[in-house]
């Protein structure tokens, strides 16, 4: 694959990633957000595979496989399972209206592209527009966490934000050392584990959502 074709593919994937991110932000139902984050992880795996063929870095194949298995399949399935288990039908609870969140995410995306234009030398070395896309994915993920009250939607935001970090790291360095990528993935699994336990335990013992914990403030 030629250099330019690679850049074009990565740019296209970046556009799709941003699109899934908008889906996550705009999702009015929690199932939609889960499917969107699953699709986003699938795209990340695809990007890893593309980079693997382009650079010949075999570690990236491993990362693509792990991403597919863990983030595109296992974690969304866990989220899905929790939603069913807790039997929540209510809509996700935004702190500010979804339209306002969308407007904020537009600001973030524009600002990311604007801010990274000055990083000329870095952008030369990396594949296409991966850096601004990655930064806006990361920040928008945090935005999702900051504008949702329930723990489950915050988990979705965490995964999306983490996808952004992954994409940036992968595209900028053309494959980070395997041990670090694996470490990052373990991090997410651990966060999902802790939050799952917390959500289920809090619900089963005091019948409250994690968001209600602010009543415990001393």
């Amino acid at each position, binding site marked *: 694959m030629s250099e330019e074709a690679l850049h074009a593919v990565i740019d296209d994937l970046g556009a799709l990633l941003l699109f899934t991110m908008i889906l996550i932000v705009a999702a009015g139902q929690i199932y939609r957000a889960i499917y969107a984050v699953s699709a986003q992880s699938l795209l990340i795996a695809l990007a890893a595979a593309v980079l693997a063929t382009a650079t010949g870095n075999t570690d990236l194949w491993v990362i693509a496989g792990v991403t597919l298995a863990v983030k595109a399949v296992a974690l969304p399935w866990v989220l899905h399972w929790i939603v069913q288990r807790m039997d929540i039908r209510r809509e996700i609870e935004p*702190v500010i209206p979804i339209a306002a969140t969308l407007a904020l995410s537009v600001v*973030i995306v524009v*600002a*990311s592209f604007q*801010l990274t234009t*000055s990083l000329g030398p870095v952008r030369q070395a990396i594949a296409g527009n991966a850096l601004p896309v990655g*930064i806006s994915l990361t*920040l928008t993920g*945090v*935005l999702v*966490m*900051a*504008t*949702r*009250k329930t*723990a489950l939607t*915050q988990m979705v935001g965490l995964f999306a934000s983490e996808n952004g970090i992954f994409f940036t790291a992968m595209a900028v360095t053309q494959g980070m*050392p395997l*041990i670090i990528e694996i470490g990052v993935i373990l991090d997410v699994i651990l966060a999902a584990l802790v939050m799952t336990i917390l959500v289920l335990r809090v619900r089963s013992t005091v019948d409250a959502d*994690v*968001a209600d*914990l*602010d*009543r*415990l*403030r*001393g």
Partner: protein
Amino acid sequence: MDVDSGLGLMAACYGAGALSSLLLARLSGRLALGVGHLAAFAGAVAGLGIALGVLLGAPGRTLTQPLPILFPFARLSLSVDGLSAYFLFVISLVAVAAALYGPAYLRAHSPDAGPARQAAQGFALNVFLGSMAFVCCADDALTFLFCWEGMTLASYVLVVSDDRDGENARAGLLYMVMAHGGTALLLVAFLILTERSGAFDFMALRAAARDLDPATRTTLFFLAFSGFAAKAGVVPLHVWLPRAHPAAPSHVSALMSGVMLKVAIYGILRFAFDLLAPVAGPLPFSWGWIVLFVGTISAVLGVLYALQQHDLKRLLAFHSVENIGIILIGVGLAMILWRQEGVGGALATVALTAALLHTVNHAAFKGLLFLGAGSVLCRTHVRNMEELGGLARRMPWTAGLFLLGAIAISALPPLNGFVSEWLTFQALLGSASRFHGPAGLVIVFAAAMLALTGGLAAACFVKAFGVTFLGRPRTSHAEHATEAPPSMIAAMVWLGAVCVALGVAPGYAMPLLDAPTATLLHGPVASAVVTARGPLVLSTALMPSGADATAISMTMVAALLLSLTAIAWILRRGLQPALHRAAPTWTCGMKPTSRFDYTATAFAKPLRLVFEALYHPRREVTRETAGTPYVLRRIHYAGEVVDLAETQVYHRVEREISALSQAIRARSTGRIYGYIGFVLGALFVALLLSELGR
């Protein structure tokens, strides 16, 4: 056995000990404890072998061992040069005793400990010893920091493992906070260096340090020095030490006081003379003087606070502050004198030799004293001296060995403490005549303070030994004490033998100091200066003409003392022809009770009055009378002295921090998404700022 494969062997011993403690605990806690300590013993012996192999091998020999590549950005390796080998020697020397002492002590002290606790103790001891050994052998920043952290965490586990009361947990927490504060400073110092070098190995760091400007170099040194000082317990960073050291099991106290503090000294030496040293010319002016000053203050304050302690192990812990101060006096002096025009390298070598010799000496006698205190503790379960007394008859071996350690730490001939303090004095006095004006005054002040320290230490140990071991037992705990088990006695005998050997024939130990002094100073080596006139005579060979005035033969001193004692004994036997009988002490017709004996509080009272300004003593006397004020039923006395650093610095900081956190708590919402919003805002602002700064 080849020395080169020794590092692997040592790592294997400690690793096997740690693992087997965990695995065997399912079968039997006792077995886990035994096997864990056995492995630690083997590891310590291997460490001794490596250290001696390097120290006594060909000059300039360095053992290097690359480690597997874990991170693509850093090459990790171990390297044992003269300095590393010397500290490895000190660590292994005490580790041998601790591993021998541990199982019997833990069984006697806490017989009802469950297998989980025993497994944790065996595991943490091996990790602790292993990381201490490998901190000294690390040849790159990552290995160094990793082992440094392992050392802190393992010793924390050991500190809180002893008893499950709140006091231990609080001591452990304070230790953890102080140690991590120090580690943070070290981390910053290392990161600034690695950022400049682009690599983590010490070779690259040395190269990067070559073109530092003086201000950065000095900042880096003081960052590292503060980090190490927090670990070494230098005043005013010592507050954790008198709490954490007594809380640990006694053999671990011996390791923490005797050895772990020395690892910090190793770090200071490594940074000052090796990593950060300029290519040519002396070290920056401020370094040595500040180290000298801080060491002097630590020495005096450490012993002064030790005097007023009635908890045997706490008293010993304060003495560690004092001895670290004495070591730092030597280190600071060596830093001042190194490569100084016209002063000559010999004096720097004497100062460094004194510091290094005091390092091993303090490890030996403080280890011995802590093990002795541990024997008392495991037989009486009491740490307060006021509740002991009369143990010399009941525990003769422990008493004798404790007395030996007490003489050594009081810097009395013919034991090892005297030798290193004598050398420190020689270095101080030798340099005092070479510096004029204020600098000379500071050195004379340090010498005077060192003399005061020695005297106060002797007073302190007269109190500690007298109140604990002599007189009559004050409580039934002390009355029913029995001698410690043989393995514990054996461990103490080992350290006692080291004290005697280093005291009576220090000249023969000087070759051990050649490699570290050569590695650091590149000047004349220790034995060439100190034992220039044969191994039996210590001379500093400083004065061009009157060198004879500063020479001493410890062997002759010991022989003299021995023969004088023998003559006195013979004369006494000869003059008293068997016309004596044993009788109770004459107490004006009253029946003697243990209440007649000197108490620790009473013994320390004169010094409490003299140094009132430092102690701020608080006393509280309550009298219970029967109707009239002339008939007293009982008097209750309570008193304590405060640690100036604690009240003046730490309590204020604590108040400020809690006021601040109260203010924050009053304004916090407790909403998770709100906090995440703060994170997002901070990230965004950081991005904007980085853009603007471009």
